[in-house]
């Protein structure tokens, strides 16, 4: 039943773990100073027109590391390192310790674009209606937007294996999926379930279908690449 509810790229091929909610890591832009038509791909944020207008979270955070790991898989290491270096050259401020702080900097005018997890913007838009930052789905003409999951699995020595599996199935069931994702402004992993209105307002997007587990294995290579490129 879990296999039916959760798409293949959001679960372990061997069935050890299952994603239960999805957060996209994509481009956020100032609605006051940027037209969505100026935006396209993650890589394009390294173009000269974004010089001094780009903000990023710390390269030490897993979210950015997994984005770079995904890009290594798609573009290869050399091309990815060029992209990362071009981002660093465009930064308007030292990298931020959290996406929330970075989104507030975009709203306040310190910079115009950045890369964020969707739910951080969901929270801010919910708290402050009219928050002047909006989501742009990156790489829609290409391989799709990078997604992360929150999920669950059963440990090897679990005493109540059957009940644990039933619990996961309950979490994947439509009614609970809706509430589970709503708590944190995420997308339900179960594709048949609608997200919150705030989240649905961002529109539909094509996710990058590389398996989340593959990204985890490339992460050390991504960390080293980011060290070389000087992403603090």
């Amino acid at each position, binding site marked *: 039943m879990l296999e039916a509810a959760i798409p293949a790229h959001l679960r372990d091929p061997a069935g050890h773990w299952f994603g239960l909610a999805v957060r996209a890591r994509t481009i956020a832009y100032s609605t006051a100073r940027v037209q969505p038509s100026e935006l396209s791909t993650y890589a394009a944020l390294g173009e000269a027109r974004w010089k001094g207008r780009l903000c990023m979270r710390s390269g030490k955070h897993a979210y950015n*590391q997994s984005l770079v790991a995904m890009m290594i898989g798609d573009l290869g290491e050399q091309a990815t390192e060029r992209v990362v270096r071009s981002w660093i050259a465009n930064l308007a401020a030292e990298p931020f310790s959290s996406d929330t702080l970075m989104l507030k900097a975009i*709203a306040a005018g310190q910079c115009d674009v950045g890369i964020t997890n969707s739910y951080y913007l969901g929270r801010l838009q919910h708290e402050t209606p009219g928050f002047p930052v909006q989501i742009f789905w990156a790489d829609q003409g290409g391989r799709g937007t990078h997604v992360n999951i929150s999920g669950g699995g059963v440990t090897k020595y679990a005493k109540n294996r059957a009940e644990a599996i039933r619990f996961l199935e309950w979490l994947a069931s439509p009614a609970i999926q809706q509430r589970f994702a709503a708590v944190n402004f995420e997308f339900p992993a179960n594709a048949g379930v609608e997200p919150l209105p705030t989240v649905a307002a961002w529109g539909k997007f094509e996710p990058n279908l590389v398996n989340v587990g593959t990204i985890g294995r490339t992460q050390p290579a991504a960390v080293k690449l980011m060290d*070389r490129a000087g992403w603090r």
Partner: protein
Amino acid sequence: MTSSQRLGPALAAIAVALPMIAVIIAVVQGASGADPELWSHLREHVLGRVALNTVILVLGVVAIAMALGTSLAWLTAACDFPGRSFFSWALLLPMAMPAYVLAFVAVAALDYAGAVPMALRGWFGDGLWLPPIRSTAGVIGVLALAGYPYVYLMARGAFLTHGARALEAAQSLGLGPWQGLFRVAVPLARPWLAGGAALVAMETLADFGAVSIFNYDTFTTAIYQAWFALFSIETALGLALLLLLFVAAALAIERAARGRARYSAADSGARTALRVGLSGARGWAATGYASLVFALGFALPALALARWAWKVAPIDLDARYVDYALRTVGLAGMAAFACLTLALVLGYATRQSAGRITQAAARVATLGYAVPGAVLAVGVVTVLGATDQGFRALAGGEGLWLQGTVFALLLGYVARFLAVAHGPVQGGFARIRPSLEEAARGLGLGARELLARLHLPLLGAGIGTAVLLVFVDVMKEMPITLMTRPFGWDTLAVRVFEMTAEGDWERAALPSLAIVIAGLLPVALLTRRMERAARAA
């Protein structure tokens, strides 16, 4: 001295150093398995920068904390200015404020999108340039504000109790009050100032929370990164070993610089010297300076926390907080008692025997204060894993005996905070004149009687300070608690971590404020001790 008299203290000192020795063995053993390819990557792209960053941070923080702590202690101990008696205790309050809390308040309020720059740009126009808070200067400033109370506490104690006679002598020789400060009081207070500086340096070296919020890379962030992003615990332990060597070298330099000088109280019956009255503008300048430090280090951050906490309290404050607070206070109390007991054993052992083994054991035992909590945690877990295996071999079964118990947590706290209790206890021992002991021995008192009838009564103030300092430090501690706590033992600091990790600073304010409030009582007690010492002196 017979060999058995020397053996006892050496064994006692080694026993006290055992937790730290075990951690060091675990670190060295793990480090030897570090991945050579990762290691060369770190050498090329990471090590140089984090080493330089760490040195700059420690030197900057120690310099500013020393300047603030010593000058404020001198002003409140030896001078008179409007508000002096208020500031003499209020300036200790920042001690209740964890560095990571001060850091997130500073960044939230003072970064480009924070309330203060937003308001300033509103008044003066969008073009207004403000110095960025997320900078080397910013992180140094925050850690110095969090650390100066340690120097202040030690310096003020020294100025109040042993300075009076010496200063009078200085004055009678024609030195003015400021010359008296630099040529007599500061040199005399050196062991206590050095103790304060060492505490600040080690807090800074081990800090993880504040530097992460500023995204300032140091050894601790590199260790965390190697462990949780490169997935190599061995490489992380290799970095930890480098940090340990760094700390050992710094301590050796400090020790060499101090030389063989002996310090003890000039006259225990010293009277209070007359305070230098700072009149008119100079007095108000002193008031302004003390107010500024108090406002930045305590009043304004506490107000900001209170405002945020007030906003989220209706939805977030419930019965869980009673449990968080009780666990926090209970753990801090147990750790304070354990650290004090061991510090007394260690202090007494090193006084009884100046032998090399005893001294070396004392140095090892107090090294943990500079070791990142995360490293101590993994050391403790490794060591207890091995002992649990031993227990299982003896008793059979699958159970965990020590891992995941309160004992594991306390072991981590002792390894880390013994130095905090050791400082004041050792300082107290240092001020008991050797001639007193010789006289007591001459009267036929044995070692035990000497401890009970001479040392403990004379150590009173040092003991109180040791207990209170450890108590406050454990309440603020985050990484060891996070990684070795028994299941379900969430404390206030754990809650702060969970909320700051999500960037949810308003909800982090509530447990932060609770830590500050719970810390106020011990800090108030510390203040009262200081005032009593002043009246007695």
